[in-house]
């Protein structure tokens, strides 16, 4: 590798990007301007919002007691508001009595005159009465006794009139209507008398409530309602206090709970929690955006403008070109992320300064400490590297910049989903999360920015997070480099896509084995069916017959959701289902190998998953799965049935789908290793539960290799059958008291476990088999490439041999 060339490519690309106005704008100008403008906008909005007054009409206000007085000349008395003098002016109170000039505050534009408002309020009140006669208050009493809290109009008999009421209320210009019942003062007075005399009796009966009408669906009304409610409750407290004092009861009775709320977080920590949510999310999204737009220009853009070929003809090697481009993208990715965060932080600071105390009490916006910022930069590097390499690969794969941009949306959505997942406070760092891409960085960063005592413990995770992130970055980079050495990717041109002609060509021009996209589609179909089944195919596991029900569901699931899509697609879309599903007589050695590997792989796989659970890499199995398993142990069902359901059915169905249709399709391009890896990952994903998925993916590798090696599906079915059968037997045997097999012991939960000394020869056998299979496959591939093994013949021998020199017959 020549560093001089990498540097040359890098410098050229950077200069090129800096000369591009669009990129410059998105990457530098936009963040620098956006946040201050956004901040300014928020400030403006808050100012105008604060200026707005809401109208409250109080009917029959002369019935209110004089002491404590709820209303004064300005409206609600200042003492009843939490914010005191700040909050009081936000409500404009119009009183029916029109007393003491409170109705004479100057009108603002758009506000109705007090007379109009009172008129409207009266007609609303009379509507209540006309619908329900005089007993509205009585009825309210009853409802309130049933359910305390806010009453909905539907709860009353008002239902029929609700629409009309709603409309009238909206038109009236009143946000909150307070209706004091007649005789309120008298009733209150009576109650006070009773308390003073300490006489018992039902004083509340016939004590009508104050009716407060608001519309929660209207923002203005909701805001005003919250204020009015606060004021009324405080005023109520004051009444109670007065009453207690008059009856010489202890004041403490007011709040017998006696709470003192103590907050122990330091001010910086509270502020950190705002940033700890915002910064990781912004970091992830901005580094992706920065990487993406640059990558599109460097990859697809270069192809589109025709300069790619010229560059490829220069003596620079492909690796050097890719690295030069990768470095450019990572530079812009990191640059965008840092600029955005800086601009955001500075804007936050500025807003704090200009707002003074009012804002800082509710939201603290001081930037996190130096150490946290340093962590952010350290973690940004592998994250940006991963995104840069991934975007470069996608951009290289795309035929045009337009196609490249289509890839952004799904990528962004996946990444956003992962980030949102990390923002949930219930998600905490675990060994598993520390190796998941994007999630690991976001979670670690969130924890470190929190600046809590727990964040010190998180530093342990820094190593797996950094190592795995760099690993993913390397993997993505390797993909990008690989794409650069593929002629079909570099020189494919944008072609027109027509759905109809595509479908007709799909059905008319069939090949012996499925194409790559067909294999992927088959997997997606299986996945969608599983997803759909999650809602309507959940057996009732609580019933008496649940055991049978579960078994039946599993068989139906396997047949309908796994085997059917693969078999139908195989029959419809290929000319040779025999080649597609590898229906070929296997050699004896392959069958023996399959049985042997299954017998030895089971203990290894079982102990490995125990080990992973013990190391807390994976959570323990969920409750319902353990329940289902215990049902098998309890032995209600005959053993043969369990073997059919748990071993035979999945062995046939899953092999037809994953080692049959999907693997044949994926291997179409001649890249067997990648096909095996992808098919095993798909096989894992279908198994849903994390530890099962992981195990299944590992076994999928083995099965894929076996299928390619033996060129037949029967050995893999045998392997699958044996493996699952052993698992079923083992679970069943665990339930039997005193049952013992050689090489095994029972742990405290009663499960049969395998001795460590048995695992070693098992591992050796497996390793030997794998090496043997890989070497055989590589040798065959080599012979085929050199044309020594006969390529495709009329009678399809198997699907591995199809990448032949001869054109395949098509089915017209």
């Amino acid at each position: 590798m020549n560093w001089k060339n990498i540097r040359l490519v890098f410098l050229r690309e950077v200069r090129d990007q800096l000369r591009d106005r669009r990129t410059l704008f998105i990457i530098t100008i936009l963040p620098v301007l956006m946040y201050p403008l956004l901040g300014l906008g928020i400030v403006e909005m808050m100012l105008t919002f604060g200026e707005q007054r809401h109208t409250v009409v109080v009917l029959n206000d002369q019935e209110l007691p004089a002491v404590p007085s709820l209303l004064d000349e300005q409206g609600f008395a200042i003492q009843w508001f939490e914010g005191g003098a700040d909050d009081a002016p936000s409500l404009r109170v119009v009183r029916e009595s029109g007393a003491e000039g409170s109705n004479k505050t100057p009108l603002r534009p758009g506000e109705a005159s007090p007379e109009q408002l009172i008129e409207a309020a009266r007609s609303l009140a009379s509507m209540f009465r006309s619908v329900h006669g005089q007993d509205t208050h009585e009825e309210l009493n009853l409802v309130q006794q049933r359910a305390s809290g806010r009453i909905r109009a539907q709860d009353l008999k008002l239902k029929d009139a609700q629409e009309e009421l709603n409309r009238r209320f909206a038109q009236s210009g009143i946000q909150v209507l307070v209706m004091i019942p007649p005789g309120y003062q008298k009733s209150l007075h009576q109650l006070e008398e009773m308390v003073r005399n300490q006489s018992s009796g039902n004083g509340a009966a016939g004590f009508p409530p104050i009716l407060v009408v608001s519309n929660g669906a209207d923002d203005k009304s909701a805001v005003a309602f919250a204020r009015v409610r606060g004021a009324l409750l405080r005023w109520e407290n004051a009444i109670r206090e007065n009453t207690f004092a008059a009856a010489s009861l202890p004041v403490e009775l007011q709040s017998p709970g006696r709470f003192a709320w103590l907050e122990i977080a330091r001010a910086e920590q509270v502020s950190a929690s705002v940033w700890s949510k915002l910064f990781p999310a912004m970091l992830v999204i901005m580094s992706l955006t920065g990487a993406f737009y640059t990558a599109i220009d460097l990859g697809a853009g270069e192809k589109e403008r025709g300069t790619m070929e010229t560059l490829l003809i220069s003596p620079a090697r492909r690796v050097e070109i890719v690295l030069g481009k990768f470095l450019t993208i990572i530079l812009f990715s990191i640059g965008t992320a840092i600029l955005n965060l800086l601009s955001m932080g500075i804007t936050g600071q500025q807003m704090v300064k200009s707002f003074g105390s009012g804002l800082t009490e509710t939201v603290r916006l001081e930037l996190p400490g130096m150490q946290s910022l340093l962590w952010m930069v350290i973690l940004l590097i592998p994250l940006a590297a991963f995104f840069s390499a991934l975007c470069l690969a996608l951009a290289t794969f795309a035929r045009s910049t337009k196609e490249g941009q289509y890839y952004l949306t799904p990528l962004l959505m996946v990444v956003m989903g992962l980030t949102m997942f990390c923002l949930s406070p219930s998600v905490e760092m675990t060994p598993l999360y520390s190796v998941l891409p994007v999630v690991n960085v976001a979670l670690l960063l969130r924890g470190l920015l929190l600046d809590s005592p727990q964040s010190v413990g998180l530093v342990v995770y820094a190593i797996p997070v950094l190592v795995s992130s760099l690993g993913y970055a390397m993997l993505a980079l390797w993909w990008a480099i690989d794409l650069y050495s593929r002629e079909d990717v570099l020189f494919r041109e944008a072609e027109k896509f027509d759905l109809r002609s595509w479908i007709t060509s799909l059905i008319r021009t069939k090949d012996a084995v499925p194409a790559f996209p067909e294999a992927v589609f088959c997997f997606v179909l299986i996945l969608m069916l599983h997803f759909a089944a999650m809602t309507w195919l959940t057996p009732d596991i609580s019933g008496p017959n649940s055991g049978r029900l579960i078994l039946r569901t599993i068989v139906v699931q396997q047949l309908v959701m796994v085997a059917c899509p693969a078999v139908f697609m195989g029959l419809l879309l290929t000319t040779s289902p025999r080649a597609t599903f590898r229906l070929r007589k296997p050699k004896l050695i392959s069958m023996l190998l399959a049985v042997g590997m299954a017998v030895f792989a089971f203990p290894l796989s079982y102990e490995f998953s125990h080990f992973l659970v013990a190391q807390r890499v994976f959570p323990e199995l969920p409750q319902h799965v353990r329940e289902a398993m215990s049902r098998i142990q309890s032995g209600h069902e005959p053993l043969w049935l369990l073997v059919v359901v748990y071993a035979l059915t999945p062995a046939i169905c899953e092999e037809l789908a994953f080692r049959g249709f999907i693997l044949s399709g994926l291997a179409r391009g001649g890249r067997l290793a990648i096909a095996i890896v992808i098919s095993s990952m798909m096989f894992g994903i279908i198994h849903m539960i994390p530890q099962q998925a992981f195990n299944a993916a590992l076994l999928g590798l083995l099965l894929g290799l076996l299928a390619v090696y033996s060129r037949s599906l029967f050995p893999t079915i045998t392997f699958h059958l044996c493996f699952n059968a052993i698992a079923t037997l083992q679970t069943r045997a665990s339930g039997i008291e005193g049952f013992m097999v050689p090489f095994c012991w029972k742990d405290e939960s009663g499960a049969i476990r395998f001795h460590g000394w048995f695992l070693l020869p098992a591992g050796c056998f497996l390793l030997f088999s794998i090496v043997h299979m890989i070497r055989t496959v590589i040798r065959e591939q080599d012979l085929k490439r050199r044309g020594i093994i006969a390529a495709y013949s009329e009678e399809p021998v198997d699907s591995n041999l199809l990448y032949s020199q001869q054109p395949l017959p098509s089915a017209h």
Partner: protein
Amino acid sequence: MIRVQGLTKEFAGPRHGVFRAVDDVSFEVRPGEIFGLLGLNGAGKTTCLRILSTVLRPTRGVVEVDGVNVVRDPEKVRSRIGFMSCNTGIYDRMTAWEMVEYYGRLYGIPEDRLQDRLAKIFETLKMNEIRDRLGGKMSTGMKQKVSIARTIVHDPPVIIFDEPTSGLDVLVSRAVLEAVAKLRDQGKCIIFSTHIMREVEKLCDRIAIIDRGRILAEGTLEELAERYRQPDVEELFFDLIQRRDEEIPV
């Protein structure tokens, strides 16, 4: 200088198995000679030249440029050839000087020699007035000049022109053809692909007529005229293609 022996290139068709773009092609080109590759669009000219420039790998056959095998040592081959195609391949946001300088550096020309070389090339091709103009603001003719400058900046012994005049007006094409002729006079080994008969007649020392991946005829213009009793290249070309059509039904 260039030796192509039994070259075959196959692509995996999207749904139709294998497509053979170049089929058992053999020819040789000597220094100081312009070898014309004459064929319709899609005849396999570009594929053939892309294999020569190591961008594509041959499926079968041996290709040597200046004694170096394109599969075994592609970097070495690339440093010995200049390649210019119909697609100008000029960066929009780079000036003419920067563009040629960038490729000069990629070819590993020492910095002091590079500046002299650039000055000389810009002088010869009369490009000094567009020296600091950005690629996006150049006319097609200017771009073509920059392309030629880029192709010869490292003074390669072998130069490949892939339809260099397609889409150019008469004046610019003429300038390009003159430049090609001058390069031949300097003793370069040149391959020139085109579908325009006039250019072949004017420029090429030897030609090969290629159709659907196969070479139908090869030799000097005089040899071909004599062999097929057809003095007019255009007539000869269509005769050959017609004969081939009769041989293999589509």
